[in-house]
Structures are given as structure tokens and as C-alpha cells.
């Protein structure tokens, strides 16, 4: 099956999630899962880490999954998927199955940046043929919005509150996709649900390469980021347009990292005036409200802009566009 290339194609593909997933209204995670499964080329087995998507999609006696699906624990989605892949590989050797299914991991930021980091790194190093999709809602949303290694600087969470002295999380977001890329795996990309074509194409590439692929998807969370559920896609779009979350893809050729910006990020690289100030992204989210009220904390907003600019510059250099 070829990858769907138009919205019409995408819409005509069957949904591999049943209706009635119990995620919140406006949830990015179930939308991302749905889009990922639109890119399928052959039978797939999905491995989920503990998290919002897992809990909301598998409350017995119901399930949201039309495809074979397994959840093991929080920190071990990559290890579990390694075992699934090894099992099918052994069955292929013995002639018990005719075709390897695709193996897709769906895990949140806690299960990837933090508690699942070791098992992810191990699986990437061992070279299992699987696609790991990180839906990054930038905090432990399932347990009630606690900070993770994926939470951006100065964001409010329930364990990095905006207090009199401390103004949200003090530390920067871990560059997880570049860390994955430095494992020298065949394919790493970032994507946004606001760019569904780009996302689906990247899923497809991730499935097609021989070996591990890692896809980092920004995942707006109305509950945790404090915005109206109708704005999820708009928030994701602004994350890309401000270069807060640029979209790119990366492969290795002759020992060199070949990084290319895609979609709107490529356009911004070519036409820098299109880059929006990060303030427009921050201002529509309640998790950054303390930067604007009761008085505007200009220096902190400047710091976030400086982070964004530095990361963007680094990407431009790596993409050979600086």
C-alpha cells in the first residue's frame, strides 16, 4: 500500500482506532495515533508505554485498537518492542510466518525522555527494526501535569509551579530527537499534527528504513497546557511557526548526519521573516500565563526566545542553511 499523499487519501483510509477513545477533548495524542496508523503499509503491531493514550484506549472491557496492541509498563516500551521484533524474526527464520509486521511504539515524554530513556537507547543501539513515535505533551499529563525532561523552560506544571520565587520549570527541554539521531540510526524526524502530510510521510519513511526509526511529534494538551480544546492544531502550528518546535528529518550518509528541514520549517529557513516571535506561542497557553500576568516578565520571555533562537541556529547549521 502506498502512503496517502492527499487529504482525500488520508480521509479514505480506514481509522485503525475505534471511535470513543477516552482521551480529553482536543487531545493531541489520540489524533497523532490515528494519523500514524494512516501511514501503514502492511500489518502492524503497536506497543504502548504507560501514559494517557494507553490508559484512555484500553479500559476493559473496551479497547480502541483495531490492530494488535500491547502495553507492558512505563519505562520499557522499547524493550518490549525489541522482544516482539525478535520473536517475529525468529519465526521468520523457522518459516512459521511469511512476513514481518511493522512494529510501532507509541510513548509519551515521560516514557521516553525520562523513565524509558535507557530502554530506548538500548533498542536504538541494538538496531531493532521498529518505529518509535514519541507524542510529546511536555509533562506527565496522565498523573496530573508534572514536569518531565520534555517540559520546556518556565512552563508551569504541578511540580514546577509558578511561585513567588520560581517561575515554572527552570531547566531547558532535553534535545531528545538529536540524542536519538546521535545513535546513528537510519531515520529520525520531528513532526507536528498541524502538518499531517508531513507527519504521515515521515511515519512511512520510518517504517521503510531497515532498523530503528524515531519520530518526535509535538502533542498539544489542552488540560496541561491550559488552552481551549478547539485550539490544539493552532497551538501545534504556532509551535512550528515560531521555531519552538521545528520539523526536520535526519539520516546518516557516509558517516555524516544529513539533516533536512521540512514543511514550514524549511520555508522559514529560506524566508526568515516568516519566523514568528515565540511570545505568540506562549501567550495563548495558560502554562505560561505567569510570564504575562500580573506583570509581564520580559527577561524570562527573552530567555525563552534566546533558547529557541539558539536551537534554531543549531538546526540551520546542521541542515547546511546557516
Amino acid at each position, binding site marked *: 500500500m502506498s502512503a496517502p499523499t492527499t487529504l482525500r487519501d488520508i480521509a479514505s483510509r480506514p481509522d485503525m482506532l475505534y471511535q470513543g477513545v477516552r482521551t480529553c477533548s482536543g487531545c493531541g495524542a489520540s489524533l497523532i495515533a490515528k494519523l500514524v496508523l494512516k501511514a501503514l503499509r502492511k*500489518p*502492524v*503491531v503497536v*506497543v504502548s508505554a504507560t501514559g494517557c493514550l*494507553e*490508559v484512555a484506549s*484500553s*479500559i*476493559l*472491557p*473496551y*479497547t480502541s*485498537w*483495531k*490492530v*494488535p*496492541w*500491547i*502495553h*507492558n*509498563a512505563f*519505562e*520499557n516500551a*522499547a*524493550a*518490549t*518492542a*525489541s*522482544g*516482539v*521484533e*525478535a*520473536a*517475529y*524474526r*525468529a*519465526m521468520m*527464520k*523457522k518459516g512459521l*510466518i511469511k*512476513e*514481518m*509486521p511493522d512494529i510501532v511504539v507509541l510513548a509519551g515524554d515521560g516514557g521516553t525522555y525520562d523513565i524509558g530513556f*535507557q*530502554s530506548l*537507547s*538500548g533498542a536504538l*543501539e*541494538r538496531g531493532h527494526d521498529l518505529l518509535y513515535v514519541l507524542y510529546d505533551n511536555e509533562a506527565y499529563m496522565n498523573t496530573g501535569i508534572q514536569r518531565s525532561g520534555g517540559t520546556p523552560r518556565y512552563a508551569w506544571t504541578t511540580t514546577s509551579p509558578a511561585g513567588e520565587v520560581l517561575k515554572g520549570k527552570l531547566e531547558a527541554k532535553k534535545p531528545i530527537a538529536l540524542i536519538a539521531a546521535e545513535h546513528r540510526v537510519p531515520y529520525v524526524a520531528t513532526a507536528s499534527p498541524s502538518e499531517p502530510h508531513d507527519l504521515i510521510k515521515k511515519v512511512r519513511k520510518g517504517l521503510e528504513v531497515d532498523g530503528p526509526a524515531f519520530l518526535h511529534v509535538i502533542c498539544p494538551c489542552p488540560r496541561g497546557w491550559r488552552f481551549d480544546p478547539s485550539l490544539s492544531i493552532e497551538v501545534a502550528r504556532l509551535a512550528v511557526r515560531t521555531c519552538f518546535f521545528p520539523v526536520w528529518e535526519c539520516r546518516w550518509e557516509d558517516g555524516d548526519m544529513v539533516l533536512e528541514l521540512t514543511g514550514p520549517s524549511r520555508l522559514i529557513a529560506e524566508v526568515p521573516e516568516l519566523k514568528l516571535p515565540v511570545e505568540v506561542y506562549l501567550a495563548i497557553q495558560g502554562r505560561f500565563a505567569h510570564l504575562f500576568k500580573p506583570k509581564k516578565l520580559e527577561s524570562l520571555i527573552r530567555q525563552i526566545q534566546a533558547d529557541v533562537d539558539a536551537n534554531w541556529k543549531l538546526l540551520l547549521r546542521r541542515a547546511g542553511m546557516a
Partner: protein
Amino acid sequence: MARVEQKRLGMMGDEAVAYAIKQVEPDVVAAYPITPQTIIVERFSDYVADGEVRTEFVAVESEHSALSACVGAAAAGARAFTATASQGLALMWEILYIASSMRLPIVMAIVNRALSAPINIHCDHSDAMGARDSGWIQLFCENCQEAYDTVIQAWRIAEHPDVQLPVMVCLDGFVVSHTLEDIEVLPDEAVKEFVGERKLVRVVGHAGDAFYRLDPTGKEPLSMGTFAMYDLYFEYKRQQEEAMRAALRVIEEVGHEYSRLTGRYYGLIDRYRLEDAEVAIVGLGSSMGTAKEAVDGLREEGIKAGVLRIRSFRPFPMDAIRGALKDVRAVAVMDRAMSFGGPAGPLMMDMAAAFYGLEEGPVMVNYIYGLGGRDISTDDFKAVVRDVLKAAEEGVKGVPVRFVGVRG
């Protein structure tokens, strides 16, 4: 099944386990090295490197991932094996419960070793006891031969349709794992025939009947490892207990079938000179070999002693134990682990429960011994027997706990 011709090979316990696993040739072995289990994974790596097995060997980055990968592999419908010890088993603890509750027939060798701190690489049973309530079948082996035989039997027990539970094959660190012994091994074909292919059970899934696995064709989709609240969770746990009860029968059935093939029988318990015994030593693992030697010596002195070695610690064979000890008046219960602050060692608590509420039962004294690999000799066991006989003469109150071979 007719007796097959066996070959005699000199092997250490770890090597015997690796050799048995080579003969079984599971689909996936995922393992991480830890003393004194390392020889198992090293030997098995040799078999993989030499092309003697088609097994996928996944050299994971931790024991947590080792068992996690086994869960994934077994859920995919494959046979999965791992091996660990001590800290490694402790690190797996979270996934132990998941593997058993997901009813995945994984087999794992535990090379029993003390838990830190202080860090120690030698034998005791603290590691396995920490996994006591995790829903795994736990079989304790006395020697290399039994470790070899039990690793082969474990698949049949685990995969039995009435059981569908993971199995730990426990062998004592160094005492068994690193001790050379002549063992009888089956031909490869006989092992293959005995274990057969894994037969998947049929279950009712949301999209109709399905084999219990992650279907690689996607035609029979199942959701495995789902979320259950108070309305359904409890039933899962109740079913695990039913499976454990069934395992009591299956362990013996598999043991009998195996004995017809090999002439060696292992069941739930191992009775040694208990027929006319007045006093018995009860325990687990390799030190029961020493206890048997001590019993022989005591018999020469006119003391009618015997040994009851418990092979199946989980499920705990209450009926078999009561039957074996019905005419025994004094029992020394040997624990190579502690339950700090508890009423006694873990084996003693189960032994006390086994006789609870009965009008008659033996006088029992609990002896904690051998922690961190401290040796126990035949003389120690003889002293234990004399001590428990004295206790039976004088009578005991409650659950006496005594220590063997420790300062202070």
C-alpha cells in the same frame, strides 16, 4: 514414551542450563549478565555464534529490559527465556507481576544469590523469596542434573493450557552454578519431542476468537496488557490463583512423563528416608544434599531422621507436605532467607500455615542459615536435628526461630 539413551557429560550448573536451553531452542533469549548467572548467557552466546541454534539472542541493556523483551516475545507467540540472579531479579520485580498476570509462559533461570547491601555474590534465597508473591511458579533444584532436567520440564509446565504461567528454575549460586558434576543428558531430538512446539491457547477477543498472541497478520487483533479497574482487576488475580492450583497437578504429570523418558522423577517434593522418620529436615535447594548426607550419619547413630526437600515452592504443595510428614514428630525448617520483622523465615511461615488448624502436627523449629553464602556442614545439620528433637521433648511455644552459623 520409551526410555531414551542418554549421554554423560561433565557440566557446571550454569552450563547445564545453557545446554538444556540449546536443546529446547526457544525463539528468543533476552538476557543481561550478572554473577553467578553469567556462564548461562556466555555459553548460550557461543551456541548462537556457532550457528547451533536459530534463537534470536537479544543482549539487552538491563535485566528490566530482559524480562520486558521476554514479555514482548512471549506475547508475540514465541518461546522466551531469560536468566538472572540477585540484583537482576530485584530490578525485574515490576515486570515479574506483569508477565504472570498476562499469563505468559516465560521460563527464567534464577541463580540464587544474596541481595545487597553489603554486596555479596554468593548463595542465599533472598532473591527468589522477594519474587515469592509475583505469580511465578518457583522450582528449586538440588544439583546440576536437576537444573538441566527442570529447565526442560519448565516449558511443559508453563505452557500447559490449564497453567499458562511463567516458571522460575532456581539453582543455588556457585554451589550448583559453578560446580562440576557428571550429568545425564538427553539427545537433542528427545528434548525437542518432549517440549514440542508452543501451543497457543484460544481466547475470546474484541474482534472474535483469537490465538492468545499479537497476531503478525493483524487478522485476529488482541489488546494485551490493558487497563482494568475495580470491576475487573480482581478476577484476573483470582484466575492466576486457579492456574497455580492447576500447576500442582501439572508439575507432577510432567514429572512422571519425564521419568518414563529418563528414569529421573521430580515432583512437588523430594522425600529422603522419610518412611520411618521421627525427625525431618525441610528446606530448599542444594543444601538439602548436605542434609541428606547428615541424615545418613544420624541414622548410623540410631536417630531416625529424613529430609523433605521442597522442589515446588510456588505453588506450595500443602497436601504433599502434610502427607510426607504425617508420622514425623519433629521438623527443622531451614530458611536461607529472612523476612525481617516477620514471625519467621518465609518457608517456616508456609510450613506453619500448612499445619494450622490440624489437631496433630509435628513440633517445628525454624533455622535461618547460609545467608550470603555462609557454608553449612553435615555437622551443622546434625546439630540442628538434635536441637529440634530436644525442642520436641521439651515442647515449644509459638514459632521458634533460631540462627545457624552466625556470630552474635
